[in-house]
């Protein structure tokens, strides 16, 4: 396999490759969750892994998020490197006590004696008509909690590379895989590997407006940027990648050159990560702003099932284009 060889791969396959690599490289790594084994994962991410690695490393659990997340925490405390899969972020609320009260606090409460090197993967976001109990974007909530890291891989490269870096991290890391990205297909270097998990990245440079986003909204922002470029507006698109710790230096630096900021977040506006980003901009770049910071967020409703309503409840390309134009070419 040559160094530069590219392979055609989906996001789902990239995550599977990442898990497979981790299982191969480190015998302490194992995967547990609902239907990850015989069924191949609710989103078919772990298809084939049970056959390859056996039931001791690919463990089907009962429908008990609190129980198996707690088991993951215990295993991590015991020296293992568990990957816990929770079907959706909505279901993670059943494990919120384990994540927030246990995983996030043990290092602190043990006086620095016990790290919890746990990775929890879960799906997030809407767009697949899975309705209000499977489609929400609560990653911003988790970004509120000290003691954990919150990753939101959007690109194939990050889907492939963030897991290993997360497993290497001595503390609990939550990885949010957007449902609508799983079938996304593209080219990835065959030798793609670990990537950093603490920096935002500029996915498209531009001079007129900084669009700050993450997850599936990244691609809507990039599509909008392409349309806007045709109209002479150069948008800089920033993929946050990690919501906690938030890499504010990258977007503050960007705003210092564009002087305008638009945040696109599928999560709800009130008290969401978009509000936090907005606050950081006020704290760090107030004197750089040439227009008020704006936000395009998910509508503040439970995610609807009907396709047209679901679309209306999520940030869309058209809204980004319209808002960006108004911000850059405002007149009255």
């Amino acid at each position, binding site marked *: 396999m040559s160094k530069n060889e590219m392979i055609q791969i989906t996001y789902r396959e990239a995550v599977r490759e990442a898990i497979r690599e981790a299982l191969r490289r480190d015998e302490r790594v194992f995967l547990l969750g609902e239907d990850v084994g015989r069924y191949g994962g609710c989103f078919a991410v772990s298809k084939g892994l049970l056959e390859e690695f056996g039931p001791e490393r690919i463990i089907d659990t009962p429908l008990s998020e609190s129980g198996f997340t707690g088991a993951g925490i215990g295993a991590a405390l015991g020296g293992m490197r568990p990957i816990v899969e929770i079907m959706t972020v909505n279901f993670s609320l059943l494990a919120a006590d384990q994540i927030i009260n246990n995983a996030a606090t043990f290092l602190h409460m043990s006086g620095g004696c016990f790290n919890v090197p746990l990775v929890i993967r879960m799906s997030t976001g809407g767009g697949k008509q899975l309705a209000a109990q499977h489609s929400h974007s609560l990653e911003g909530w988790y970004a509120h909690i000290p003691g954990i890291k919150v990753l939101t891989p959007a690109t194939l490269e990050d889907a492939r590379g963030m897991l290993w870096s997360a497993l290497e991290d001595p503390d609990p890391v939550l990885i949010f895989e957007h449902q609508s990205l799983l079938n996304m297909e593209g080219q990835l270097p065959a030798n793609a590997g670990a990537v950093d998990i603490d920096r935002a990245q500029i996915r498209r440079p531009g001079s007129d407006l900084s669009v700050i986003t993450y997850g599936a909204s990244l691609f809507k922002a990039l599509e909008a940027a392409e349309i806007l470029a045709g109209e002479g507006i150069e948008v800089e698109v920033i993929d946050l990648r990690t919501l906690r710790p938030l890499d504010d230096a990258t977007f503050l630096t960007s705003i210092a050159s564009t002087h305008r900021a638009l945040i696109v977040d599928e999560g709800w506006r009130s008290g969401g990560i978009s509000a936090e980003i907005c606050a950081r901009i006020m704290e760090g770049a107030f004197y750089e702003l040439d*227009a008020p910071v704006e936000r395009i967020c998910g509508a503040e409703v439970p995610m609807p099932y009907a396709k047209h309503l679901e679309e209306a409840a999520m940030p869309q390309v058209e809204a980004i284009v319209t808002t960006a134009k108004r911000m850059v070419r405002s007149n009255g």
Partner: protein
Amino acid sequence: MAEFCMPSLGADMKEGILVKWKVEPGDQVKRGDIISEVETQKGIIEIEVFTDGTIEQILVHPGEKVPVGTVLATIRVPGEEAKAPREERPPEPTFKYKFCMISAQHKEGPAKRPPEPTPVTTAGKRLKISPSARKLAAELAVNLSTVQGTGQGNAITRADIERAAEAQNAAAPLAPVKPEAGMRQAIATAMARSNREIPHYYLATHIDMSNTMRWLASENKKRSIKERILPVVPLIKATALALGKVPELNGFWIDDRLQLQEAVHVGFAISLRQGGLVAPAIHHADLKSLPELMEALHDLITRTRGGRLRSSELTDATITVTCLGDLGVETVYGVIYPPQVALVGFGKIMEQPWAENGMLGIRPVLTTSLAADHRATDGHRGAQFLEALNQYLQKPEEL
């Protein structure tokens, strides 16, 4: 401890370059002593000190350009112990200049005009401007009061500032090389502000100058050429005395109210040959005799044209007098120099048919006009002022 600050030498001044110190730490100074020179858009100005004491520390050195209100030196007032030296160039001039205003005002004597802050508001309304545009405007020295906003809700944006800066540069491309361009800019700022903020009203009247001219001719006949009195001198004196009858025209409009001034310091508009105009104060014009006024005027015009004005002369005027009669102008329609509230304009004294007591005669007639701030006075008081002025000019021997 008193602080000697970069003074505001006019409504339009924002900063000045300290050119020279005439004192050193340890020197004794008296109120009114000229202790430094400052270069402004109006030329090099000698700066007087407003307190007695001993120069403690010099904080700004020759060649440095600092904002109005920056402490230039500290002065130990009598009875005060020497203190440990303070840090040079205090970083917060805005706070300091408040202090300067207070320390300048608690002394008796001519009240000081407070320095003008960068206009963040226009006529009491807060400007709608983005933080970044405000920063850029400061960097490019763009006068915000002239910028039209095109952003959301007509807010001023960076693009607006960039356009304004280009327009400013296009309008004054020679600014860095021609000092008079700086003065033009200063006049532009002050006059634009006047026209924008001051609701002017205008009154004019014809004054029979027979008595004054006859009296002046006989006076001048008695005098050597060097002691001759120009007709403008009785006009200035009569103006100053008439202000005693209508004191509301002698003062400043500051903080939305008229602040009457007791002393009458008549600013006399002096045009400069290279273009531009300065209206320095003749201090206590109401208390000077005509020969004293002539001498003061001679001294003032000579020093103005030689670029050696004193700070108090630039800041103290409580009213302005403009004479354009030499060029044949009949009536002056003046623009008030803020924060003053009135300007008296004199045209040419010319022979005119004059009807009086049913008889027609030829008289030297002067058209006198008053431009006054309607916020401070009404036409009725303005009319009383012009009538008082007329009465004084009918009895020149009493001036």
